[in-house]
């Protein structure tokens, strides 16, 4: 316990330098700015802003990215409440009661409770990361290649289970992601693989290029075809602060949401996505007045928003301790770390404690910044929402292009963005969800490496995965998940859950 506090102290002194505080602030501000733009969720926001962190030192870059991430998430909640337009799946739930509150002239309290609940959840979750991170990392020291392979496989199957829409299409996305991960030179022999003779992808498809195309550009295209029927609330937002009654009603939902989110966030395969749904369902079920839900119940904002933020935070645990991203956003973090020359994994904590603890401390600072930035700036965000999309989209497009160009100073790289943008648009139009693809793309090379090593150890005997208890257990979990999703009863339920989203 003592070491947790001394470690956190180390982290806060690293993250608390004026430069890093400023980076965290700018990250949170810019993240919210982009995240508030309609239809741009955290994945697209981080993809667009990733290049501006390239020139920073590793800790500074990661701190800024964490700020961008929280900012983007908060921006998503803001649009969910004000415009009824969720920036991402996890803030879909917020639209249900948050937007109703806004219609009743209570946008201020809704935004405030979302921010305060998220801050509380973030504080608890940061502490959990600090507590469990080292334990898990020391546990991970015993992991061999078979365990890593089994863990990543379980994560990918989890991503398939939690993807919306057809299971078969989610499977296809994971396989295509793995295939794209093979592009470039082979890790052992250095031979060129699947490069189509394009020199720019000889070292593999650039992660940022893929992410900006699949999420940023495809998202703009989808927004352009929607008719612009954004109902922005004309009325001025008055009375930002929630009343005592609001706060009393919100305390328990915030606590429960934090608990649910923290647990689900750690699960491999993007459990964090489920957190807001689980919290909303629970609050509605135990409420004495369930009929108020969907008509502006503050519990329906407080619980899911806290759960969302707690889950977002604890999903850093598998990334920081095992080096395995549980979802597409964390996959972006892996991309960012790799660009900075850091290999995510259990070694980061021991070899680079300042970076590890500095990043954890910055999560908390980032959450605090959001409360400070967002509440006073709500008016600015509302005005930003009124900027017509015909002005916004070329600006977003320009930043995408400049950002991608700045990676390698390569114009071809920019043109690849157009290609991936077209691919992303095609995928969405045909019912494929691109997030599992991005996750598989990042995990692909790691999986191949660990599979090769496992087979080398076992001389080609696949029984190695079953004979080692931990990997056997993980594979069992994966098989269990697969069976679960294919059971007719669950399948129907799953379709219902995701149907509510739309």
């Amino acid at each position, binding site marked *: 316990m003592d070491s947790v506090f001394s470690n956190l102290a180390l982290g806060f002194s690293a993250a608390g330098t004026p430069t890093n505080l400023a980076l965290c602030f700018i990250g949170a501000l810019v993240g919210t700015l982009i995240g508030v733009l309609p239809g741009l969720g955290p994945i697209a926001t981080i993809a667009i802003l990733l290049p*501006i962190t390239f*020139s920073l030192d590793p800790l500074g870059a990661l701190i800024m990215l964490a700020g961008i991430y929280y900012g983007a998430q908060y921006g998503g909640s803001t649009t969910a409440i004000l415009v009824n337009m969720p920036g991402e799946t996890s803030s879909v739930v917020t639209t249900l009661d948050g937007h109703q509150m806004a219609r009743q002239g209570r946008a201020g309290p809704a935004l405030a409770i979302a921010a305060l609940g998220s801050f509380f959840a973030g504080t608890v979750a940061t502490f959990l990361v600090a507590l469990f991170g080292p334990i898990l990392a020391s546990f991970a020291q015993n992991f061999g290649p078979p365990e890593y392979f089994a863990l990543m496989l379980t994560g990918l199957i989890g991503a398939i289970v939690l993807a919306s829409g*057809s299971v*078969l*299409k989610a*499977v*296809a996305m994971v*396989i*295509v992601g*793995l*295939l794209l991960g*093979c592009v470039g030179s*082979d890790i*052992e*022999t250095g*031979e060129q*693989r699947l490069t189509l003779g394009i020199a720019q992808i000889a070292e593999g498809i650039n992660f940022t290029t893929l992410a900006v195309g699949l999420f940023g*550009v495809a998202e*703009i*295209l989808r927004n*352009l*075809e929607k008719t*612009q029927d954004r109902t922005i609330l004309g009325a001025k937002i008055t009375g930002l602060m929630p009343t005592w009654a609001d706060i009393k009603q919100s305390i328990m939902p915030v606590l429960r949401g934090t608990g649910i989110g923290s647990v689900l966030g750690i699960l491999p395969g993007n459990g964090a996505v489920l957190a807001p749904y689980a919290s909303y369902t629970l609050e509605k079920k135990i409420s004495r007045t369930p009929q108020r839900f969907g008509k502006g119940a503050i519990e329906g904002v407080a619980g899911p928003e806290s759960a969302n933020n707690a889950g977002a935070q604890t999903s850093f645990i598998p990334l920081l301790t095992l080096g395995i991203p549980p979802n597409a956003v964390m996959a972006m973090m892996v991309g960012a770390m790799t660009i900075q020359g850091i290999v995510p994994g259990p070694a980061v904590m021991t070899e680079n404690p300042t970076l590890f603890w500095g990043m954890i401390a910055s999560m908390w600072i980032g959450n605090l910044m959001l409360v400070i930035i967002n509440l006073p700036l709500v008016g600015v965000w509302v005005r930003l929402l009124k900027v017509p*999309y*015909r*002005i916004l*989209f*070329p*600006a977003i*497009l*320009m930043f995408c*292009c*400049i950002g991608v*160009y*700045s990676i390698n*100073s390569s*114009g*071809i*790289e*920019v*043109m690849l*963005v*157009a290609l991936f*943008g*077209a691919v992303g*648009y*095609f995928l969405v139009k*045909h*019912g*494929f969800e691109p997030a599992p693809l991005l996750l598989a793309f990042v995990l692909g090379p790691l999986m*191949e490496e660990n*599979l*090769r090593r496992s*087979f*080398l150890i*076992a*001389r*080609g*005997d*696949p029984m190695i995965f079953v004979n080692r208890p931990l990997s056997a257990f993980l594979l069992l979990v994966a098989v269990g998940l697969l069976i679960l999703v294919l059971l007719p009863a669950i399948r129907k339920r799953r379709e219902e859950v995701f149907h509510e989203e739309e």
Partner: protein
Amino acid sequence: MRVRSPQDLVGGIALIALAALAFSQIGDLRFGTASRMGPGYFPTVLAALTGLVGLVLAVRSLVLDGHGLESLNLRHGLPLLGAILVFGLTIRPLGLVLASGLLFLVSAFASPELKWRETLVASVVLIGLAVLLFVVLLDLPFPVWPRM
């Protein structure tokens, strides 16, 4: 025979095409054995799986009812993708300012309602901001103007 899910049929065919493309690229990469996997092992297995899933999806689309095709939005899509291509092609010879200007010009055709004066003002302001942010503040090595 009737196609019950055109969306899945097109998706399945696209996956099969991707698998074919991957196979054509694998060429003479060594497959190896399970105990010593060659560089061709993983891609071959994945390409085969891609084709298989595509095939299942395509066949299933003849049996199970599903979604119809949504129309592709070329009216916005072509200028948008064109703007990116133009930027990529021109950034090297023309520099940041002119390449961004062209990007704004081409992407204006993707706009839901085109207002030239507004587009002009917005692009001048935004290009100025971009130069300030990326070249002055972040000090990235960008060509700002055409190289003579």
